[in-house]
């Protein structure tokens, strides 16, 4: 049975619904931080590496914990589909964390632009 784009979106929204409060809070903090960093003319590029490193770390942890988080074991993974899913999922988590942490890392490590 085919799922429409809006159908998939509706399922994703139901998936995150229990954590909607947390997600909104994190996004709000990110937006406020971004606005403040923009106003204070911080350099974003200098914080890219630490954000990516933090994301990569979370991604690696996700990769190793994913089977356990789903009440399964690595021995339950079978074939390309499962391995691509776990690797793809971990990379997606890594990128998401890196993007979300970028403003915080800029606040911590970003240099002030002198112009």
């Amino acid at each position, binding site marked *: *049975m*085919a*799922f*429409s784009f*809006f*159908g998939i*979106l*509706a*399922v*994703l*929204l*139901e*998936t995150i*619904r229990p954590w909607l409060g947390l997600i909104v809070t994190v*996004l709000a903090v990110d*937006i406020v931080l*971004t606005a403040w960093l*923009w106003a204070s*003319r911080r*350099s*974003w*590029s200098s914080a890219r590496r630490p954000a990516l490193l933090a994301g990569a770390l979370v991604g690696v942890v996700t990769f190793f914990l994913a*089977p356990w988080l*789903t*009440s*399964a*074991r690595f021995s*339950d*993974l*079978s*074939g390309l*589909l*499962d391995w691509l*899913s*776990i690797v793809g999922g971990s990379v997606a988590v890594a990128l998401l964390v890196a*993007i979300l942490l970028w403003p915080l890392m800029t606040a911590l490590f970003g240099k002030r*632009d002198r*112009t």
Partner: protein
Amino acid sequence: MSLDSRKASNLSRKDSTARIDDGRRRLLKAAGLGGALAAVAGGTLLSAPTSAMQTRARIVIVGAGAAGIAAANRLARGLDGAAITIIDRRQRHLYQPGLTLVATGIWKPGKVVDRNDRYLPQSVNWIQDHVAEFDPEANRVVTTAGRVVPYDYLLVTTGLKIDFDAIEGMSPELIGRESIGCVYDNPEHAERTWQMIDQYTAAGGVGLFTRGPGGIKCAGAPLKVTMLTEDIARQRSTRRSLEMVYNSPGAGLFSQPDTNEFLKQEFPERDIAINWHHRLKGIEPEAHRATFATPEGDVRIDYDFIHVVPPMRAPDALGNSPLAWQEGGFADDGNWMEVDQFSMRHQRYGNVFGAGDCVGTPIGKTAASVKAQVPVAVDNMINTIRDRETVARYDGYTSCPLITGRGRGILVEFDYALNMVPSFPFISPYREHWVPWVMKDRMLQPAYNAMLRGRI
């Protein structure tokens, strides 16, 4: 500072500014994309109908299970001015596809319990009672409290009745006692079943796994309970002390032929014996003995654990009404409601539609079937109100994430022709994977909730 060095310094500053501006632009783009996505997402959740039909029709939905609530949401959005009433005494909403996981100790019972009022649209009138009588000649239903509810259009989504009385000596109160389990009906049964499976996989002995004859809801559940029990014993290193026997009432294990062949190989490989044509007929709880009707006569088998799956049928009020099949296989099997298997419309009462477990169709007593049936029933009802042809068709779609062990499963989807119809072509319906397990464990409940809200 020389002119060249000033130029170089200015260029460097411009580069730096350009880099920062580029970074900001990208951030803004990302923020814009996020905003657009949030707007679309919000729109999906809150959107008003673009072409709701004006009508004063009185619509009654009997049953606030998965099909009833999903239909109420779709009708409330698709119709403007209709008087929609839903009748069901139950305030608790159960996510029944999760009961297998509760009965095998993977989920806590609370995870499958929700409230109907969280999903029912405010514009729908909810009568908290059960229907005692269907009177399609007079276009009305009567509740157990004696309230007469007239309608112009009726949608029957009562669900089904688990017929414990059909097994001599069996009653729901026995579940969780005398080594008896039953995954069906509610989380209390499922939790008590887990206590029995927990004891059995620790102590060992003879385990009998049964399946009711005829149409039952989630026909994969008895198989899943069997395989998960075997898997639990293997994890606990007690498998050798278990003698497991699956008792099929017929000559097969599953209606879809490829999956049936897979299971017929899988069970012997896992040392699960199969008794063909063994229908559970009676049980002697204190003696731990079950009686099976077989072509050779009754057979008695002693057990240390038994998973009882009774036959199922339409609720009495529906099954004894004119809406039920009056003759043929669906009447003999469970007094199921008569509908055209494609349009979900009653064949004798044109203003009556049905969906979910209560209808007599060749296959389709799963939540996945509800997802496919409800839009068809609702579209055809709306077209009937419009006095147009009913063109929506249900192709028999059903799905079973056949869990073969904790952490793996097969996503089986098929239609009336018993052909595999995978939603995701990259997931093989012939091979065990971790991904279908993740879908069962994490994704199907959100999909179910989206279905209740009428979004998918």
